[in-house]
């Protein structure tokens, strides 16, 4: 008889708020930028009620998970019930941003029935819920494309207003494309001065191949300061 130890995700330290700038400093220009993005997502595709959104980037290290976490915080602040799923089953980082352990998560829920959603869900702040990825599976792409996973996400939709799914980079592995094929919308995150243009274009083509509905691009890590010419918008043609 093996005694099963119940694992839970608990907080470890309290200095993790640097990355969660929207939670730490809601009045900062960065938080304002996230509010703008929230609004633009709301109005980006009026015909369709979009509940499940995938966030991905072309390459590694473009700040995808940080953007997803802060977007979730910003949406939760607007009174939406938000769920963030860490679907990066290869290199999960979301739990570090919310400063929780990654002992149990999505993979447990998919692969063994004995753990309930309530035990794995973490709520970093009111209206915001987070589901870590859990132990890394040997076959991430197959798992994400499985009927089990689709049914799991469908079952979550009735409990939340919006579900943000954080995926691995679109060009590195097929995982993002697999998820994009059945989720409602995709947000492509690109780090300014970091992602080569042709790779971002390749990521876009890759996502369009699987009939993904790309809502738009979030330009991340834009340099600020004097002489910065990045904030020039052209109105009209």
């Amino acid at each position, binding site marked *: 008889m093996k005694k099963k130890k119940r694992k839970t995700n608990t907080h470890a330290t309290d200095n993790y708020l*640097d990355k969660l700038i929207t939670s730490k400093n809601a009045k900062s220009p960065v938080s304002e930028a996230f509010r703008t993005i929230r609004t633009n997502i709301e109005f980006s595709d009026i015909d369709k009620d979009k509940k499940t959104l995938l966030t991905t980037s072309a390459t590694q290290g473009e700040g995808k998970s940080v953007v997803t976490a802060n977007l979730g915080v910003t949406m939760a602040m607007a009174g939406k019930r938000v769920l963030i799923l860490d679907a990066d089953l290869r290199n999960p980082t979301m739990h570090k941003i919310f400063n929780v352990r990654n002992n149990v998560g999505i993979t447990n829920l998919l692969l063994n029935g004995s753990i309930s959603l309530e035990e794995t869900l973490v709520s970093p702040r009111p209206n915001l819920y987070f589901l870590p990825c859990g132990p890394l599976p040997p076959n991430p792409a197959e798992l994400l494309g499985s009927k089990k996973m689709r049914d799991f996400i469908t079952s979550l939709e009735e409990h939340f207003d919006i579900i943000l799914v954080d995926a691995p980079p679109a060009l590195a592995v097929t995982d993002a494309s697999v998820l994009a094929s059945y989720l409602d919308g995709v947000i492509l995150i690109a780090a*300014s001065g*970091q992602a080569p243009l042709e790779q971002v274009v390749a990521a876009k083509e890759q996502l369009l191949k699987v009939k993904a509905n790309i809502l738009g*691009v979030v330009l991340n890590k*834009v*340099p600020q300061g004097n002489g910065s*010419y990045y904030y020039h918008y052209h109105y009209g043609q």
Partner: protein
Amino acid sequence: MEQEIEIREIVAIVSKRWKAILALFIFAVATSLVASLYFIQPVYESSATLLVGKPTEGTQVVIQDVQLNRQLVKTYEEIARSGVVASAVIQDLNLDMSVNQLRGMINVRQVSDTEIISISVSDNSPDRAAFLANSVANTFITKVGTIMNLDNVSIIDEAEPSTSAVSPRPNLNAAIAGVLAIMLGVFMAFALEYMDNTIKTPKDVEQNLELPLLGTIPFFEGE
């Protein structure tokens, strides 16, 4: 509006890499100073000045003489520069150099529209420069005697060893190196900017991705 953006872009491109440009500038100036002060052999120059036309003793200066002398100056300059003088100097002093080498060290010029000729010699040793300048001047006077059959050149000033080198000029070299470094630095900043094919601005998103821009997030600590 377009113009303003262009200027802002140029300022941004340069200011983005100002540290590298400054480093290049400091490196170039330092290198040129070190090279000029420690590695380049200094060159010293001494000149002897000669007067065409003997100083008249007692008699009045005749205007025709003066005009004749002025016309002679050009001829004398060429004689002073000639290989005849140089080879004679080499023979007299038993110098270990070719005629052309010595001619390259000699500089002959007419002092602005007068009957005075200045013969200067450049050399790495100040003493040798003075010594050679005097030798060339004396040999030249002798040669004028044999070639022109005239004895109307006299030395006004003998060449003295000079205390300061004419080259290298560390300050001038440093200034040139500094200006070139800044030009090169700015050029490289632009080259790098145009070689950089990363996505940077909302304009890049519009033009290359044909996707709506949902927003821009300023870089913040913790990212």
